[in-house]
């Protein structure tokens, strides 16, 4: 091995040459790329794949009507949660409109003047008051409700139930019997499928129990802080849920989408999920064979609303306002409803626009109190903690409830309003 101190000149020059060539080549390639049309508006949302394709339909209509081009960028939950505050804090609005389902996150940003008041760009008589209240502060409304998602209940395959002589339960006792019956069926690994993701499918299921066993008022009290997580009524709900988990009625959490297939296959019997599953295969192709039953005797259901917000610092104020107005209106929302798996916030959208399965959901949602999603309403740091604790609870239901409930209580903060 050469022990000389000086690196061989040739090798050194070769390396520099390689780097220069690389950079030059890439620059040339880059400059030769067809320049992407300058989109006038940029929209961020959590929607990808099918949901994104559906959303782009509505955006296309907007462009038709106004001639304004819109670019859409999909983000994952964690990314969006961090990216947007960072951008707004930096004073730059890279997105002109952001679609997000977190009312407290919205209000938190609005409190620091980072979001624009959009009350002038929507017809508030056509939009549910409860949805507007959670994103309002004083006279200002900071978000336009666009999409309503309902979490109506436990989904199942109707022919599977028929073949096994099962019927949807109407009381809680019948529900527990159903769980036991499902577990007995050959081929069924667990009565209830558990979804995985950042944690939200488990929180949806848990909230169904809170509302179902404790009433919608309990959920609202937990959100507002009127009732503590460590209270006996809350603990009772978790104890009941824990018993069912320990009885093995729930599957191991796995990718929430895969679980849909497994429910359809008969590996799992029922699955608590939002109404949007009607847009996802295999449910979407078999809308006549799927149905849901609400948590027996429940008086409420969580609905979450996807809101459109506008940064105060957006560079395209006029165009962004037009987009907000469009999204809050019936025309945009009807387009979305027609594609399935979408409940409109705007009451001007006709019932005939919905498909069979969605119509059942819409009609159900009209019979119960719509409550905010627990963790979306309280916000961070509670939301992260809630999701994380539930993930742990699902895989270890014997964990100490007092500790868990205390952890949740510790991270509760009053929802900003």
């Amino acid at each position, binding site marked *: 091995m050469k022990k000389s101190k000086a690196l061989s000149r040739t090798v050194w020059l070769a390396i520099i040459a390689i780097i220069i060539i690389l950079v030059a080549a890439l620059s040339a390639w880059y400059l030769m790329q067809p320049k992407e049309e300058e989109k006038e508006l940029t929209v961020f949302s959590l929607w990808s794949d099918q949901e994104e394709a559906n959303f782009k339909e509505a955006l296309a209509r907007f462009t038709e009507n106004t001639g304004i081009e819109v670019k859409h960028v999909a983000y994952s939950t964690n990314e969006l949660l961090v990216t947007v505050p960072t951008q707004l804090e930096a004073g730059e609005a890279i997105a002109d409109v952001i679609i997000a389902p977190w009312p407290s996150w919205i209000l938190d940003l609005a409190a620091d003047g980072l979001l624009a008041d959009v009350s002038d760009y929507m017809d508030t008589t056509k939009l549910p008051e409860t949805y507007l209240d959670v994103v309002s502060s004083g006279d200002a409304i900071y978000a336009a409700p666009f999409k309503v998602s309902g979490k109506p209940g436990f989904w199942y395959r109707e022919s599977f139930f028929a073949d096994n002589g099962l019927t949807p339960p109407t009381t809680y006792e019948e529900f527990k019997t159903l769980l036991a019956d499902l577990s007995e069926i050959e081929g069924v690994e667990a009565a209830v499928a558990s979804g995985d993701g950042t944690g939200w499918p488990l929180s949806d299921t848990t909230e169904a129990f809170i509302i179902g066993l404790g009433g919608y008022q309990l959920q609202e009290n937990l959100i507002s802080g009127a009732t503590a997580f460590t209270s006996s009524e809350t603990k009772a709900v978790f104890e009941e849920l824990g018993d069912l988990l320990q009885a093995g009625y729930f599957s191991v959490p796995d990718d929430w989408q895969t679980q849909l297939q497994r429910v359809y296959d008969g590996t799992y019997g029922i699955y608590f999920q939002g109404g949007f599953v009607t847009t996802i295969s295999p449910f979407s192709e078999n809308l006549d064979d799927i149905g849901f039953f609400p948590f027996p005797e429940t008086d409420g259901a969580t609905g979450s609303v996807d809101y459109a917000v506008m940064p105060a610092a957006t560079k395209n104020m006029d165009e962004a306002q037009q987009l907000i107005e469009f999204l809050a209106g019936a025309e945009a929302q009807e387009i979305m409803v027609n594609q399935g798996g979408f409940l409109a916030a705007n009451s001007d959208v006709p019932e005939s626009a919905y498909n069979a399965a969605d119509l059942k959901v819409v009609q159900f949602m009209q019979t119960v109190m719509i409550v905010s999603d627990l963790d979306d309403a309280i916000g961070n740091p509670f939301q992260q903690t809630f999701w994380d604790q539930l*993930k*742990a609870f699902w895989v270890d239901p014997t964990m100490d409830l007092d500790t868990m409930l205390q952890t949740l209580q510790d991270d509760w903060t009053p929802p900003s309003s």
Partner: protein
Amino acid sequence: MNLRQTKIPLFFLAPTILLLTLFVIFPVVNTIYISFLGEEDEFVGLDNYAEVFSRRNFWAPQNLVEGKPPPYGALIHNGIWIVLHLPLSLFFGLALAILLRDVKGGAVIKSAVFLGMVIPMIVGGILLRFVYDDRAGILNGFLRIVGLGDLTRTWTAYPQTILLALILGTVWIWTGFSMIVYSAGLEGIPKELFEAAKIDGASRWQTFRRITVPMLKPATIIVITMTLLWELKIFDIVWVIQQGGPGGASMVMALMMFLEAFLNRSFGTASAIATMLTVLTFGFAAYMVYRMVKE
């Protein structure tokens, strides 16, 4: 050429001083300052620090004391990382350095082991996630082959196992560093010492203890210090796998600081965490810094 000059060297040093002051020195001082401020930029003393310590996400030794599985809080997690990762990667690195000294193709093997140090830690995290995956991961594949199929699971999905899984995974990544440093250290030991020891009839173990280890002291200081610093600053791996979850079981200080600053936009508490992190860093690096300055 020890010339007494002022203008020339300061001219040479001007860009350095400018950049360092603006982007390093001032920010450090500023962060400490911010850590004492509250929501409305009012002075709140040590409130931010107290508040951070009161969070279960940061400091929750109860579980640990009772022998339960994580989460124990970010501070403790970093501590466990140090306690497990440091001795393991140091030992493996030294062992490999010695083992590969006279092996044919040793250089190639060393490069292979070192690869983990050269890749982005985001990719490192993805690799670990892959290895630990329930179906696609080699760990579970191996367990199934040796008949322990019941134990298989996605090891990073559970609070009980994620911390340990990540720590061991980072041993795989970081051993290359201690190996390379020790290799260089070993090469620097004059052969005469070993020969003299042989002539004196010293056993292998005695040679190791009396000659190798002391001669490797500078290398050991570097390995220990750099490893400690790296363990305190773990971020990318934890972010890409579970963002600190599940149940906060993989939360670490660097990540917590980031979420405080850029998710919750709470700069005061974030700065408090950063300052505590830096105090620890300084503390651990003090000895090495002292030695570096001695010359």
